[in-house]
């Protein structure tokens, strides 16, 4: 294999050991495990359960929107549904999904380490995540929440729903995110195998690292914002509530100072997955390795300077609006560098149209639409028209769902054999991908149009002229739901009936493929060593290079 002199690490040279699943058994072996692989699997289960919860809320509100009148649910229930959908999907699904599940499982493997730097802290992160999830569940049964996932004041200080419980849940989840980020930063700095220099890190690692930097710099600000909101609601100290002399726009500044970088906490890990998927499944050295790696860092930095573009119509100064608009355009540059590099990687590659690659291609299509429509919203004058319309809804779903979630599902397929030791059925996978792709685009593409025509977001009712497009969206969402359920079905079934996965089913060159599938408890036999970067694929590399060996 091209990556490493793994003579001491290669599974083949040793008698096969039992996998980390078989090494220990029983409930306790999971609940108090320090093994990053088990924690990764538990995050995967946790995020998927809440993906279902958020998805059910979404399908219910899409069903309400089949007709212009209010029929299925009351307006209040509708408000609670979109709030729960948003809050659950952001705080319990997308933010922890890729770092929590794939990051935990893969990061130490990709670094050739036995574990993350602080395994006990890692377990603590997971339990803090679970505690935050419990608070969200308490919110659901205790009056729910109707403020929208952004908890905007002054409504959130007066709403009769369980704002404090929900906010406290998000506050707790923030600490899980911070501790995971901290752990990953130290792991990347300190736990790399001999020879694994920064320029030889898989791009997934670069992406997780950049994400971790944002997590530790932005999330504390969310913590203090939510703490102030809780204090404002319980004591009325007069910081955000205008009736008490506070400033509601200050809340928005605070909130978006976290929540815009948080958008990149959500999408950067997705970028990392796509880099791996495209390189491995087109059998070609990634184009512009350093550009992709450093553009992640550039995005991490610029992401802190653009929060004001959420507030163009909130009464910030015109000058601030112009500056934020310009900086927003600037984020497009490193993002475009990535997209062009991926496309250039595909060029003359030996492309395998298997399920992971299909998801990667779907990502290129949907994320690019999501990114480009962000430019519309970043332009001051256009945003005044599009603000708080379905155009915004479509835009961020193209980025969050069409970007992160599509990449996440692609990543799950790519590493499914490594994680579970079983291969899913390829044909089933392709059908699932097709359903998800068609359903997703059918749901959201016409929302750009309906939004541009003036349909505001967050309403249970609408004027009859929009019905046709809403019906189309709702049918699309059913297809999307069906595709996702189908995907869950065949993946779970593969655990029983799937073919045994080989150690390296896609002939990847990074270190996680150099150990057994599923990996042994201590990851590698002996200490892996690395002497080249992880994109030097043997034999069919047509990028002008010769076989490395």
């Amino acid at each position, binding site marked *: 294999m091209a990556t490493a002199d793994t003579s001491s690490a290669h599974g083949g040279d040793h008698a096969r050991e039992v996998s980390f699943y078989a090494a220990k058994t029983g409930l306790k072996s999971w609940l108090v495990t320090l093994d990053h692989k088990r924690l990764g699997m538990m995050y995967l289960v946790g995020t998927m359960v809440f993906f279902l919860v958020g998805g059910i809320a979404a399908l219910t509100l899409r069903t309400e929107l089949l007709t212009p009148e209010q029929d299925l649910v009351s307006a209040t229930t509708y408000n609670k549904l979109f709030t729960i959908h948003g809050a659950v999907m952001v705080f319990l699904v997308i933010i922890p999904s890729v770092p929590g599940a794939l990051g935990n499982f893969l990061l130490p493997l990709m670094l050739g*380490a*036995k*574990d993350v*730097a*602080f*395994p006990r*802290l890692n377990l603590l992160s997971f339990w803090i995540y679970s505690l935050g999830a419990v608070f969200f569940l308490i919110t659901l049964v205790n009056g729910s929440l109707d403020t929208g996932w952004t908890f905007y004041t002054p409504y959130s200080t007066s709403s009769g729903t369980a704002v404090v419980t929900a906010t406290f849940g998000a506050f707790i989840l923030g600490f899980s995110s*911070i501790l995971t980020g*901290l*752990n990953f*930063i*130290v792991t990347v*700095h*300190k*736990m790399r195998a001999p020879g694994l220099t920064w320029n030889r890190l898989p791009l997934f690692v670069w992406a997780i690292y950049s994400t971790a930097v944002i997590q*530790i*710099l*932005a*999330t*504390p*600000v969310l*913590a*203090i*914002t939510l*703490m*102030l909101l809780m*204090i*404002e609601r319980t*004591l*009325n*100290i*007069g*910081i955000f509530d205008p009736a*008490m*002399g*506070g*400033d509601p726009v*200050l809340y928005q500044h*605070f909130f978006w100072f976290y929540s815009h970088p948080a958008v990149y906490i959500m999408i950067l890990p997705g970028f990392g997955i796509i880099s791996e998927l495209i390189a491995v499944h087109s059998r070609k050295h990634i184009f512009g390795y350093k550009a992709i790696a450093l553009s992640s860092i550039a995005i991490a930095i610029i992401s802190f300077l653009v929060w004001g573009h959420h507030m163009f119509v909130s009464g910030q100064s015109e000058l601030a609006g112009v500056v934020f608009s310009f900086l927003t355009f600037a984020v497009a540059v490193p993002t475009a560098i990535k997209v062009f590099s991926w496309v250039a990687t595909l060029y003359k590659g030996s492309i395998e149209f298997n399920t992971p690659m299909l998801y990667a291609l779907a990502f290129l299509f949907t994320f690019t639409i999501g990114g480009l429509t962000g430019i519309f919203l970043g332009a001051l004058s256009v945003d005044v028209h599009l603000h708080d319309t379905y155009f915004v809804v479509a835009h961020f779903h193209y980025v969050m769902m069409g970007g992160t979630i599509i990449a996440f599902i692609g990543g799950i397929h790519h590493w499914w054999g490594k994680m579970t030791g079983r291969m899913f059925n390829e044909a089933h996978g392709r059908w699932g991908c097709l359903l998800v792709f068609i359903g997703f685009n059918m749901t959201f593409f016409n929302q750009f149009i309906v939004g541009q025509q003036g349909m505001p977001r967050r309403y249970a009712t609408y004027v009859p002229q929009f019905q046709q497009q809403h019906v189309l969206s709702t049918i699309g969402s059913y297809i999307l739901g069906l595709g996702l359920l189908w995907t869950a079905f065949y993946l779970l079934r593969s655990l029983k009936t799937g073919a045994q996965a080989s150690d390296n089913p896609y002939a990847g060159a990074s270190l996680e493929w150099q150990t057994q599938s599923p990996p042994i408890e201590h990851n590698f036999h002996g*200490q892996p060593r690395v002497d080249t970067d992880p994109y030097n694929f043997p034999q069919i590399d047509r990028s002008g290079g010769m076989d490395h060996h």
Partner: protein
Amino acid sequence: MSSAHGQGPKAPHAFFQHHYNTVEQQAGAAKLGMWVFLATEILMFSGLFLAYFIIRILYPEMVLGSHELLSKTMGGVNTVVLLFSSFTMAMAVRSAQVGDTPGIIRNLIMTIGCACIFMVVKYFEYTGKFAHGIFPGKYFDYGRAAAYAAEHGHELVGMPHIFFGIYFTMTGLHGVHVAVGIGVLVWIMLRAKKGHFGPQYYSPVENVGLYWHIVDLVWIFLFPLLYLVK
């Protein structure tokens, strides 16, 4: 702690964790992790400092009038106490580095003592405020607070509940950090008594020390901003 380049790795100590390759790697990870954690602490408090400055810009006279009700003496005493505790904390780390276990314990006891004095002073400050109707937010009793201010020759203007809201929030969060500090200081003191620390292994002492210094540092900013506005 650093062994010269080219020498072999240090012999593993009793607290070496086996997912690390070397003792140096473990110590380096612990230290980097702590610094990253301190960065998150600074960002969390900086949100509160920002809120404070916004309030001060929005209502300068109100902040000026309200701050006169805070006791500069108690705040000043607490500042001196915390500064001294940072010194004893640094001495405790030094004692650990040279393997002087009685020194670690002695210095940690002094640090914990200072932390407790700080909390006691804070308790009297808070109860002294509450006694005159100075509560955070909507519980603020304007009539009693204004009468108390007039007794001391000061005048309340505008909406002083906002100043005291941010005062109680900032000092309260800082107080929580001091309380957590006492907890971890006691923890490493008990470990020191068992003889866990020496030149080979003193990361916990060093990291608790770093935490304690940041708690001190936050107070160094809180004191002038809240007590010494004029």
